[in-house]
């Protein structure tokens, strides 16, 4: 079968004032009709730039400086604007990452579909409407007749991504570029959308380029894969072969860093390919730590009947008010020294539970006992806040951009009046050394650091008060796999050497498996199941847990090079 899209020696450069940044360096890949070709790599690898280059939608001042892109054997790189616009959405379509932002909120689905269909096919309104209905039905939107005249905000995230796919299909394209199409979606929705893309590729013989950083998606969905690193293609071939028997050291290190659902590792191997790994000096940290003796098996938290509801419709009359029950009478214990995981899809209430435990939002019912003392209710909880700290999901928005890093790290200790003056300075410097950034990092501002480094700053900040309890709300979901592995290793070190008790919130089951001793599964504000992690993954009791587990990517065939020595049990 001949290739529908053929990229040869593509080079994309971004000239800046000081230097020329080579975003893509002589990359080659081909896509056949009906094939899903994965493009995988960490942030900055140039994978999205390839997508934009194909569409001729490179952001200024980026430009193609070498190589060719052929569509059905005709060169399309370097076409003029008008010719390119005829190809866009017609021969080549694109699906964006976030379905919540890729549809114009002020136009109905019908308006957006018909304008695209009419732009390419030159048909009448009635025909365009007919085709819109067909497309919506094809991408699996129920009642397309009534849905057609609705606005994007009336659709859920998964449904919106289906609409986006319908838009991409408007004029039977030969190639679809899907740039992280499921990253913003829940696992169950992700599986449905990937199935749909698979089906459409087969049925219409469309060549799909699937750009993602998620090895699980690559392993489950793609036929062939191209691994990119710093603008260069490091390895390309059939997915089974590349992921099962990788030949390039970078591919090997990338695969070794993927959390496995089928085996718990002692630590992630940091097979650093290019020296990106930064050390974490747990020994130094542990030496000065004020450790309290933990009695294993004794509960640190006893949580009973915890509830939270949010007002949805206000009204003067109480009976007409409408509430959304976010957390519905949840009870559990967190034992001293354990990592307690909560998993669930978005909207299941897991973050709300974490916020209530952190004292960031007030419970509407139930009690939280910490070390036998209540922390819900009216009394002051300053003593309690001193013992707990939190690491947030987004390393970009959780650090104040106008504060210097040393001030950020010092703030919790300063606020609680634990340290001041020289002692505080010393603590901050030590912490920055220990998390592997060096004391000099304190003089910089957050924007000078990468995502992984920022998460290290967050951890240093959390450790400044020498807490007993750490709440981690999706601490790695915004990070690349290799950085995720580093951060997870740090958290495992903290737990083992400093006796920290942790609450670990995540939607990522393989990560939870690596981190947690016991796991609670939440759904619609209720706890479905609480079990030891091993037992939960081996033999789930509840139907819902089973279905969640079944959505995990099957990665047992992935290369095990580098992780053999770390497997526990």
């Amino acid at each position: 079968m001949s290739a529908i899209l053929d990229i040869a020696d593509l080079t994309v450069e971004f000239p800046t004032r000081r230097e020329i940044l080579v975003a893509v360096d002589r990359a080659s890949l081909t896509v056949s009709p009906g094939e899903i070709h994965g493009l995988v790599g960490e942030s900055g690898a140039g994978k999205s730039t390839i997508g934009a280059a194909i569409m001729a939608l490179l952001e200024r001042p980026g430009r193609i400086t070498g190589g060719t892109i052929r569509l059905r054997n005709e060169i399309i790189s370097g076409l003029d604007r008008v010719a390119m616009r005829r190809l866009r959405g017609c021969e080549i379509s694109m699906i964006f990452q976030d379905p919540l932002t890729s549809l114009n909120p002020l136009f109905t689905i019908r308006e957006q579909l018909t304008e695209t269909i009419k732009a390419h096919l030159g048909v009448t309104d009635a025909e365009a409407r007919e085709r819109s209905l067909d497309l919506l039905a094809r991408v699996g939107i129920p009642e397309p007749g009534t849905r057609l005249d609705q606005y994007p905000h009336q659709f859920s995230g998964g449904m919106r991504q289906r609409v986006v796919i319908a838009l991409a299909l408007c004029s039977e394209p030969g190639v679809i570029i899907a740039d992280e199409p499921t990253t913003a979606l829940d696992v169950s929705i992700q599986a449905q959308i990937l199935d749909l893309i698979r089906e459409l590729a087969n049925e219409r013989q469309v060549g799909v380029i699937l750009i993602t950083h998620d090895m699980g998606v690559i392993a489950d969905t793609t036929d062939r894969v191209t691994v990119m690193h710093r603008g260069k293609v490091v390895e390309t071939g059939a997915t089974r072969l590349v992921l099962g028997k990788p030949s390039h050291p970078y591919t090997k290190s990338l695969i070794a860093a993927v959390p496995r659902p089928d085996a718990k590792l002692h630590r992630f191997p940091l097979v650093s390919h290019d020296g990106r790994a930064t050390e974490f000096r747990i020994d130094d940290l542990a030496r000065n730590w004020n450790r309290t003796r933990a009695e294993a098996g004794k509960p640190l938290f006893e949580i009973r009947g915890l509830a939270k509801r949010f007002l949805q419709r206000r009204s003067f009359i109480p009976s007409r008010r409408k509430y959304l029950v976010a957390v519905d009478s949840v009870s559990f214990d967190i034992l001293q020294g354990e990592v307690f995981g909560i998993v669930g899809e978005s909207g299941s209430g897991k973050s709300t539970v974490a916020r209530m435990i952190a004292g960031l939002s007030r419970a509407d019912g139930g009690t939280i006992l910490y070390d036998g003392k209540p922390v819900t209710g009216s009394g002051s909880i300053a003593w309690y806040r001193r013992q707990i700290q939190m690491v947030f999901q987004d390393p970009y928005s959780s650090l104040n951009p106008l504060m210097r890093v040393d001030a950020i790290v010092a703030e919790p200790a300063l606020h609680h009046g634990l340290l001041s003056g020289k002692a505080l300075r010393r603590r901050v410097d030590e912490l920055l050394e220990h998390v592997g950034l060096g004391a000099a990092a304190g003089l910089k501002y957050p924007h000078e650091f990468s995502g992984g480094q920022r998460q290290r700053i967050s951890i240093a900040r959390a450790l400044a008060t020498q807490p007993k309890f750490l709440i981690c709300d999706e601490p790695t979901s915004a990070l690349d796999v290799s950085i995720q592995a580093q951060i997870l290793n740090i958290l495992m070190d903290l737990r083992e050497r400093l006796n920290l008790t942790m609450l670990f919130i995540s939607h990522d089951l393989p990560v939870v498996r690596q981190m947690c001793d016991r796991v609670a599964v939440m759904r619609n504000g209720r706890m479905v199941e609480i079990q030891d992690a091993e037992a939960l993954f081996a033999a789930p009791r509840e139907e819902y847990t089973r279905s969640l587990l079944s959505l995990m990517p099957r990665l047992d065939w992935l290369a095990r090079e580098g992780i053999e020595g770390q497997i526990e049990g």
Partner: protein
Amino acid sequence: MLNYIVRRVFQSVVVLLIVGLVAFSMFRFVGDPIDNMLGQERTQADIERLRTQLGLDQPFPVQYWRFLENAAQGNFGVSYRQGRPVAEIIGERAPATLELAAVSGLFAIALGIVLGVFTAIRRDGWASNLIMTGSLIGVSLPTFLIGILLIYLFSVELDLLPSFGRGEVVDVGGWSTGFLTVSGLKALVLPAVTLGLYQMTLIMRLVRAEMLEVLRQDYISFARARGLSERVVNFRHALKNTLVPVITVIGLQFGSIIAFAIITETVFQWPGVGLLFINAIQFVDIPVMAAYLMLISVMFVGINLVVDLLYVAIDPRLRGEGNTA
């Protein structure tokens, strides 16, 4: 929807009552109107008589209540200075101000949006840089100075346009309009530009900033990736999203056009309510001042009500509730 409008109207009435109360309580500090109304040879008896006649001997809440009672019936009392009903005086003057405000508002909105969109699309072109630099002048010069400069240039030096007054007006059913005569239209140009220039530059800068923000959004990239033409992307997808926040500011600015008209009307001797208000302050003509302030706040509140409704008309996310699938 109806529920929403009823609630907004109710809120508007509360706002008006508060404005009235504040305005009314301030009049007690402006001075005693009796001093101005009676000549040098007044007796204490004259003063007392007039005070009782005007109701000024009553306690403050009673005065306010009486004012509200009459105002609700369209009766704003009798001007102390001119001795004629205030409603009649304002009725004569209001068309001048409203026409001026409408023309300069339209000028500001139309030109502001067009230039804002232009400078956003051609972000780095020399023309947009020129416009952006020029707009700084519009923002930084005070209104009266612009007025004087324009008069000097177009009336004194070039002798193209009149420097004061409304020109000839035609009376259409009690509304004196300057739109129907050439001299009336010519007389409108300079005051309208003077009054609208600041608003125009403000709207332009706002539209530009919003548009640049909108052009960065995913749905704009996605619209381009679907092969829609630049024209459709810029003027259909981007412009409509740009207008949502811009409308709020336009509403607020339209109110201040009417309020700022005082300065422009003074510079151009425009026979509108602004000039009337200035004279009323000089004479402590309380009924006129009260009526003027109420009129201005009715307009402000009305415009903001319209803005809120426009908001709902443009943005479907604000309609109804709880309809996510």
